[in-house]
């Protein structure tokens, strides 16, 4: 009896390891292939000889990409959007979530519904587009000519993240807050000295979500940023992809790297910052996913 049990468990364990390994390889393979293709030479890439490892190494594709007009520009633009966008969103979310977490707040249900409703219904692309155009006009009129600020201020803010923060703040025992108030803490001090330190991991999670979505932002940046020099990396990458897969634009190509390698090297450049910070923040992910997290 006991033996039979062990066998069925063993088989299941082997299957688990096997299938998970396959899935993990599937998740990793495209990235390895990308890196390998970005540093293989023209013949290896165009004749599809690269399958896993790089062949006939060259680093000219990277060099060419670094020298491309607008590459560093787009990189700094993405950094700009990510840093300022995340700070803006996080500041507003923390302040709002703190207020919403207080039972003494009047019309609390109303405010919560105000947030949750945006998760249920969105006006759609065209009305948003018209709205952003109008905002752009206003921004121009008051002297903000750089469209990046429009992206920073107007886009982003997810109700889900605010609700995550609010739920976490609600979990802070009120006795601690009362003790702080007795000691003469102001509202702001209560938030920064009591609530923030006690919700570190959820703040890390929300920061991560905001930063990643800023780093990856594409559609509205392409629609709204009119000056090509202000485009972020993702827009730059998409434009290059459209160029280098167009047979007419790559006619008469005579470099030792394939046009594909340029795109692969661009993908590598855009993914590397995420890959570097990823292992450090990976432990926080589970915090951001809670079942039935949306309470009204």
């Amino acid at each position: 009896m006991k033996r039979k049990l062990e066998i069925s468990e063993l088989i299941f364990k082997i299957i688990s390891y096997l299938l998970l390994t396959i899935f993990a390889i599937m998740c990793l393979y495209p990235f390895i292939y990308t890196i390998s293709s970005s540093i293989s030479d023209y013949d290896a890439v165009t004749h599809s000889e690269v399958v896993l490892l790089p062949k006939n190494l060259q680093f000219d594709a990277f060099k060419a990409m670094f020298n491309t007009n607008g590459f560093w520009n787009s990189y700094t633009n993405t950094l700009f959007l990510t840093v300022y966008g995340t700070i803006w969103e996080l500041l507003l979310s923390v302040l709002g979530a703190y207020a919403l977490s207080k039972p003494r707040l009047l019309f609390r249900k109303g405010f919560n519904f105000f947030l949750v409703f945006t998760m249920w219904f969105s006006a759609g692309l065209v009305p948003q587009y018209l709205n952003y155009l109008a905002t752009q006009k206003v921004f121009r009129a008051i002297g903000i000519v750089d469209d990046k600020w429009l992206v920073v201020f107007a886009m982003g803010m997810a109700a889900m993240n605010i609700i995550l923060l609010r739920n976490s703040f609600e979990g802070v025992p009120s006795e601690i807050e009362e003790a702080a108030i007795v000691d003469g803490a102001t509202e702001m001090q209560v938030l920064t000295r009591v609530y923030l330190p006690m919700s570190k991991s959820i703040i890390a999670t929300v920061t991560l979500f905001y930063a990643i979505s800023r780093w990856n932002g594409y559609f509205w940046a392409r629609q709204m940023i009119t000056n090509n020099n202000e485009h972020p990396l993702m827009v730059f990458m998409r434009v290059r992809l459209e160029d280098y897969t167009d047979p007419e634009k790559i006619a008469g190509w005579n470099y030792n790297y394939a046009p594909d390698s340029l795109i692969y090297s661009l993908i590598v450049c855009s993914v590397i910052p995420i890959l570097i910070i990823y292992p450090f923040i990976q432990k926080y992910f589970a915090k951001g996913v809670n079942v039935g997290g949306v309470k009204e």
Partner: protein
Amino acid sequence: MALNVSDYLIFDEESGTYIENPEQVVRDDVEKHHWLNVFRQVLKDWRLYLMLVPMIAVFLLWRYLPMYELLGCFKVTDDVKTVAEQFYSGFSYFKQLLIGGTTLSTEFWRAFRNTFLLSFYGLIFGFPMPIIIALFFNEIRSNIMRSIYQVLTYLPKFMSTVVMTSLITMLVKQGTIISGAGVISQMLEHLGLISSEVANAGLLNNPSFFRAIYQISGIWETAGYDSIVFFAAIIAISPTSYEAAQIDGAGKMAQMKYVVLPSILSTIVIMLITKIGTLLNIGYEKVLLLYKPETYMTADVVSTFSQRYGIAGTMKGLAAAAEMMNNVIGMLLVIGANTIAKKASNVSLY
């Protein structure tokens, strides 16, 4: 004004004790919400309300104000005048989209069907994967190994849509005179799943492959990350449950059936209902970056239809009307699903 105890407390015959007078509760509530008291309280707690202001302002300006622009659906729209200055045109856009065999209405219905089908297939094929992966994670006892698997399988979730679609484009690209087809196309060709003509023509140019590409890349992107919820539910199961089952002679499959599945059933039900609720809210970015005129037949969804006619084109009112219909139905689904989830979670949480 004299205070009267009976205003506040009344004797309850049933329990034999004094309870709060329900009338006074109502009176308190009315007084609390009297505008003067509200004003006083807001004034006293002004810091708290000030904190709320910037967030509310952002949501008002850039989430709720666009909803006002939806009035454009009922008006004649062109680029010169604003929505407020236009004349009402009634339901003409809706009529144009819903009835009358014009190319526009056929295209709209095609987009609507594609929206539904893409998310429906996503539900059928995509939903079970995270559960299966969570079950497998549970089998791996070594913490290091499990962390490695988790790091690798969560990774695609954090790639941007542009990176992912660029990768897909490159991996299944068409073959030309100078270069071969994408590496995945070639693998499929070697396995005998597709012919070399199909592989060389480029899978993204072929409408019959769009849905498969969309679903497989979707699973690749989210299955690992979505398993977190289920895995959290599985590790919450007490080890004694397994031991009890083992003593009763349950094999691995029997343990799955009688211990693990019942314990995570409520999570599965809630997640399933939530997924059904978001059936029509399909992300536009991925489709927009992957589709081409050749594949509109299977790839065009309502939001890309709307983008094409309203943002790239000039039929703003019509495009807004199309997306509004989709989003209203989507919202009804979400609200319905939420209501059911609330009831279901009460019932199935043992």
